[in-house]
């Protein structure tokens, strides 16, 4: 079995407040293997960053912004959502495995939802990893 690869979380610092969930290595304590990188706004996340994370060996990427409609900077979360869905340039490259990208839109108090989604996503990509390594 291949070594367990990391899931990268690109999160807006105003979205789900997960400060208490992560340890000093920026890893989600209850979901080891999920690491977190914070942005001033989810609108800053480029599809390119998602691609590069995958290229550098991430098993999957979680993008997290605030509830749609409540972006502090007005519409950052809508933009990255549309970009991921290919409705607004620049989009995600075709080669990126869409199954390994998850986008969440959670307000500040919703850290529990974040955790459960992150755990589920982690197990999904782990399964994908195993399947793919079997295929060769």
């Amino acid at each position, binding site marked *: 079995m291949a070594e367990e690869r*990391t899931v*990268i979380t690109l999160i807006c610092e105003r979205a789900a407040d997960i*400060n208490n969930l992560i340890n000093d*290595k*920026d890893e989600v304590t209850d979901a080891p293997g999920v*690491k977190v*990188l914070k*942005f*001033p*706004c989810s*609108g*800053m*996340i*480029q599809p*390119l*960053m998602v691609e*590069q*994370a995958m290229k*550098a*060996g*991430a098993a999957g990427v979680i993008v997290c912004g605030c*509830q*749609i*409609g*409540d972006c*502090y*900077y*007005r*519409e*950052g979360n809508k*933009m*990255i959502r549309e*970009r991921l869905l290919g409705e*607004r*340039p*620049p989009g995600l490259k075709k080669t990126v495995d869409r199954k390994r990208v998850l986008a969440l*839109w959670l*307000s*500040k*108090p*919703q850290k529990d939802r974040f955790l459960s989604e992150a755990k589920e996503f982690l197990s999904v990509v782990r399964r994908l990893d195993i399947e793919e390594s079997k295929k060769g």
Partner: protein
Amino acid sequence: MQEKMEKSNIFHTLFLEPEKLINKVVTSKYNPLYYHGALPQFIMYVLFLSGLLLFAYYVPTVDNAYFSKNLINAFTSVDYITNTIPFGAVVRAMHRYAGDAMVIAILLHMVRVWFTDRFRQYRWVQWLSGVVLLLMVMFIGQTGYYLIWDERSLLLTRMTVSAFEAVPVIGEPLKHWFLNGRNITNLTLSNYLFIHIGLSFSLLFALWIHYVRMTRPVITPPPALNYLLVALILVAVYLFPITETKMADLNLQPTNMEIDWFFLWPYWVLSSAGAGGYWFWITVLLAVLCLIPLPMFYGSKAVEAAEVVTNKCTGCRLCSLDCPYQAIEMVPAPAGSRFKLLATVKAYRCSGCGVCVGACAFDAIDLPDLPDAQVNLKIKELLEAK
């Protein structure tokens, strides 16, 4: 961050909890708290429409020298609207309660914007124009109460005149402007009608300033919310029907009145504090509202504006289209460049949000705090650390 959360405990109970609940029940799509700015805008349309219907039958005169049967003046025309025109009373009541709803919606908007910290720095133009808009709405609402020309209108008119008279130097001219002459005449009501309607349309101009620094302002709530809003107004129409009032009589001095707390509270201030006190409190209130966005109260660090990497920018315009604060201008590229346009950031408008970074496929625009290169480096670090 931590102490900020503690400071805003009220915010928690006031907004975050209901917000969470509403999101659970109807999802963020229909959360009125996410349309707090669009709600007053929609109510404005309700007011415009119902106002148009009332305007069609309104006669702005005070003619009441003798109480003949066929007297036609402002009061009797309002009476005619109420009792004779089909649904006249309902439209009148809708116009009144939509006005109240407007004040409530604006206050909600204001409080939410305050608690979510969305009013200062690069948003001060919106805040100040918002204060002006609130002031305009208040005055429009008050003139609406003068127009009915019942005893309350007369009392309000006289109180306003007394407040104006107390203003040094320009008091007299103000009074003349307000009454459109030295005394209450037919011209006075024409003036009221002009202020009421003219100022209402000026709202559109003030709204333009309110929106000018925002790309794609959210100005329409989803239809379902609009239905609910109209339904609320209609319920108020049933619960608080229009009641009969007495025509103003210039020879009498009415002394007390029902107060509409949304629009007429300044008159309560006026009657309890006197003209001097009234101007004092109104000035203090306005000053506070206007000073709120001043940066020195917050000790926050200045926004680090985004920066364009001149030799990478291809002039594709994506960042300028997406910037939520109209902070990026496309200028002709310097001579010798391969491209036609170059993005330039107007630092005083920039919020440092980084949306432009997300929009640029060429890594040509960066936040000084967190450049692309650093993001990618951090991603690598996170992946390598075990």
